[in-house]
């Protein structure tokens, strides 16, 4: 093994450190530690001359490990790693001791601060003896992408990617492309045609040279990792072996089935229909009751299957606005119709939505509020002599009165819920699910489309209910990442990863479930665990959980940390005795 030659640099940071820490004393004392070749102090280590000093010393003294004691590594670790690279050393042969944020700025006793600085630097020196060269690692990226789901999100993603010249495989469970958007007439809030938008896109996708469509196809199992996935896809009896670098999951959601809600009598009362069925009426241009008459009274009931602990606790996000849209469409198609909207909270939050709410309310629409959790309206058949077919009874919250509404047609604004096969899909693609069987994103705030599995993205409704523009934004967001990786042809993966020593691993499989990224798999042939370093993010949890000590967390190995502790304590105690 090569001789360890350590260079130690103590930064003054102007007076920031020097005022509270006797930096010269620190340098002098630590120069006496074993393996330390030189120890220097300097005004600003991060400045160009400071960095040059390190480079020169590395060459002159043949140093192979560098300790810089300055500010927080969160600020300058990258700076100095680059310095080392410039000097021809591996950037990981570097350790920083934070004596500014965690010493000089937070203490006011110079003697104690100096003592602590010495201990921290000693710890770093002790630690760096165990450092090893780590190399940047990349995996190559197959430029093809698999898009699962042919709704608006999937179609958008496929087109965006295909337009850059990359191959896209689009897999759709059903025969028809377009998903839920193809089943609706107009979009809110501007009442534009959904059909025109989606049909144009479907037309493009069907004729796109870079897109291969698999209809009536379900993904069975996917193998591999980012950049290098593969799967066998069966279609019409033939099987195709596909290789792709990234996966976009855009399987969407399905409408809630309201048959289970007794109050509404869906399935029993012929003129109680779901919003999706009403969309079909609008597409056909025929808003008629089962008897074939035009309704004189139409009631729209919100929050069916949503915001209720018996069905789904979550809000389906789109129904309120769809209901307002229906009011406008009804008013246009049947000018004299009485329109009633039973709602819980009017969630008109998007662009132009509150304005639509306001303009709709001017169109003789009667809004009625009910308690969607405990007190649902009851739909019943009207008496024979009544002017209407059905009567809806409810406790109206805004007036505090018990009222009844005449209705000839009742539209249930059904919520959205996970597809039946969501769980199987999650398993085959390797992503997690949240409480409501929605797919889980990597970070709910700052990474809403990536997943914990690198190279797999969730977009559109399958991540959570959302409006069309948001689904499209998400679809495009995922393609941004994929384009960046395709463009580079390879993707850098975490350097600080875990590795399994196969000579020691006994195959107890403790580590496999511990990994939050499912980066560890079991090699049945050798009966050892294997870390897929393309997936590993280097948290080190597995290393701590491994009972045999077979897993090392690179750059945070047991030895590195133990010697850091040892160095710190020995210096600290030694100084205490003085």
């Amino acid at each position, binding site marked *: 093994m090569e001789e360890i030659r350590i260079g130690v640099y103590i930064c003054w940071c102007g007076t920031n450190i020097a005022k509270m820490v006797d930096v010269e004393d620190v340098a002098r004392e630590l120069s006496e530690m074993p393996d330390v070749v030189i120890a220097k102090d300097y005004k600003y280590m991060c400045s160009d001359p400071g960095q040059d000093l390190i480079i020169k010393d590395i060459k002159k003294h043949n140093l192979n490990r560098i300790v810089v004691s300055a500010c927080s590594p969160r600020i300058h670790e990258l700076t100095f790693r680059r310095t080392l690279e410039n000097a021809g050393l591996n950037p990981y042969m570097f350790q920083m001791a934070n004596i500014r944020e965690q010493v000089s700025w937070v203490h006011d006793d110079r003697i104690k601060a100096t003592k602590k600085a010495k201990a921290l630097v000693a710890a770093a020196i002790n630690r760096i003896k165990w450092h090893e060269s780590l190399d940047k690692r990349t995996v190559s990226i197959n430029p093809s992408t698999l898009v699962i789901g042919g709704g608006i999100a999937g179609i958008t993603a496929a087109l965006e990617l295909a337009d850059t010249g990359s191959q896209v495989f689009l897999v759709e469970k059903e025969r028809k492309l377009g998903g839920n958007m193809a089943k609706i007439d107009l979009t809110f809030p501007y009442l534009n045609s959904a059909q025109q938008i989606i049909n144009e896109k479907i037309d493009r996708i069907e004729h796109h040279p870079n897109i291969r469509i698999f209809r009536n196809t379900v993904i069975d199992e996917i193998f591999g990792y980012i950049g290098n996935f593969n799967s066998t896809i069966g279609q019409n009896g033939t099987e195709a072996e596909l290789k792709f670098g990234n996966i976009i999951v855009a399987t969407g959601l399905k409408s809630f089935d309201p048959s289970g809600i007794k109050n509404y009598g869906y399935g029993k009362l012929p003129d109680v229909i779901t919003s999706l069925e009403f969309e079909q009426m609008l597409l056909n241009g025929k808003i008629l009751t089962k008897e074939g008459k035009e309704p004189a009274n139409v009631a729209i009931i919100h929050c069916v299957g949503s915001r209720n602990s018996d069905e789904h606790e979550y809000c389906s996000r789109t129904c309120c606005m769809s209901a307002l849209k229906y009011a406008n469409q009804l008013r246009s198609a049947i000018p004299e119709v*009485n329109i*009633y909207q039973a709602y819980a909270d*009017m969630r008109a939050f998007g662009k132009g939505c509150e304005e639509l*709410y*306001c303009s709709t*309310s*001017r169109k*003789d*629409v*009667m*809004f*009625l*509020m009910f308690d969607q959790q405990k007190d649902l309206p009851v739909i019943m058949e009207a008496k024979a002599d009544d002017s209407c077919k059905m009567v809806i*009874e409810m406790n*109206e919250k*805004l*007036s*505090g*009165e*018990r*009222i*009844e*509404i*005449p209705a000839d047609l009742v539209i249930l604004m059904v919520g959205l819920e996970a597809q039946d096969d969501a769980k199987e899909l999650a398993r085959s693609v390797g992503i997690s699910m949240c409480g409501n069987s929605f797919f889980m994103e990597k970070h709910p705030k700052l990474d809403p489309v990536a997943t914990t599995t690198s190279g797999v993205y969730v977009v559109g409704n399958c991540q959570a209910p959302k409006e069309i523009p948001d689904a499209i934004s998400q679809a495009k967001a995922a393609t941004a990442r994929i384009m960046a990786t395709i463009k580079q042809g390879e993707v850098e993966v975490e350097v600080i990863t875990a590795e399994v020593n196969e000579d020691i691993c006994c195959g107890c499989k403790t580590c496999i479930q511990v990994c939050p990224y499912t980066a560890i798999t079991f090699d049945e042939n050798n009966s050892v665990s294997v870390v897929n370093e393309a997936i590993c993010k280097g948290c080190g949890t597995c290393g701590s959980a491994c009972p045999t000590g077979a897993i090392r967390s690179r750059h945070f190995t047991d030895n590195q940390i133990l010697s850091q502790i040892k160095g710190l304590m020995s210096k600290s105690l030694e100084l205490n005795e003085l």
Partner: protein
Amino acid sequence: MIQRVNPNLKKDLLKLGVKDWNECFHCGNCTAICQLTEEDSLNPRKVFRQAQLGLKTSLQANISPWMCYYCGECSDTCPRDANPGELMMSLRRYLTSIYDWTGLSRLFYTNKFMEFAAILGLATIVILLFAIWGPPLDPTLTSEGGVKINSFAPIKWIELGDWSMAVVVAALLISNILNMFYKVIIKPGVKIPLSVYATELWKLPAHFATQAKFRKCDTKGKYYWGAHWMMMTGYTIMFILIVVFLPEFQVEEIYDWWHWQRLLGYYSTFGLLFGLIYVIIGRIKQNNQIFKFSHLSDWLFVIMLFMTTVSGIMLHLFRINGMPYATYYTYIAHIAILIPMICIEVPFSKWSHLAYRPFAIYFASLKKAASEKQYKTGLAAEIA
């Protein structure tokens, strides 16, 4: 009790109003900003709700519209521009037409032609009466160059006319108030002990005279209150003068200017003029929320009162300056405007509020006192 919603009531109400209020999304701002809001008596939003849903029974039993003096604060701050103040105004018209058993009120509110016809018809009758039974305008009426008003319009006839008009109007008003009492108290089944009727009775004249509630309106309200109060007192004093004290009022002799009759008369005139000009400028400029929307009945009322006032002033000026012919013609014109104004506006239109409002306050306090009493006896029974 389950009430069925009735979208048609709204359409009906719209005929009496000037603006749709369906934008309201029930935030309750109006109720909260209104300084007069009181449980059971004034809750603008609840009235809104009854109107929107078309809950006729509840609406007719509701006295909230009368409790509102229309300071306009609710409409100013309404986040949806739904104009609660204007709805209250429209509802006052609605309730007036509901209380009025003759149906004339409704007819006049909804049919401009009929309203004009009624006014013009009455005016014509007045002029005809003078033309037929009035003395010939010959020099006997101007002997010594003076104005002989009592000879022109003999006081006994005029007094007879005055009193009969007062009786008719009062009869109509009282019957309408009884109707109101039925709709507000009897029909909803409010139980009120007889003693309460007596103990709360003082509120009736007190509120009529002071309009103290109006003062509670916002800062701007105090200003309106001043104008409104002056107009109201001016009108009332004048009304009493010409009906009760006609013999002291319509005299040949011209009193000294400090005589009580003249002083009261001047005050009334000033009060009316001040209030009217304030309102007319407001309605023309639409400078404030309450003046933004004017129903025909609003304009008619103001214009007729203004014309009455102006003709009265002219009459007075002509008389003290000894201009007999001018005085006599103006007198006819004055009466020809005054009679239709009182006969149409007081029982059937906007002016009915001078009676409904104090009664509404009285009924509200009855309800409140009754429920308090009930609560107390209930409590006592419980304790016992």
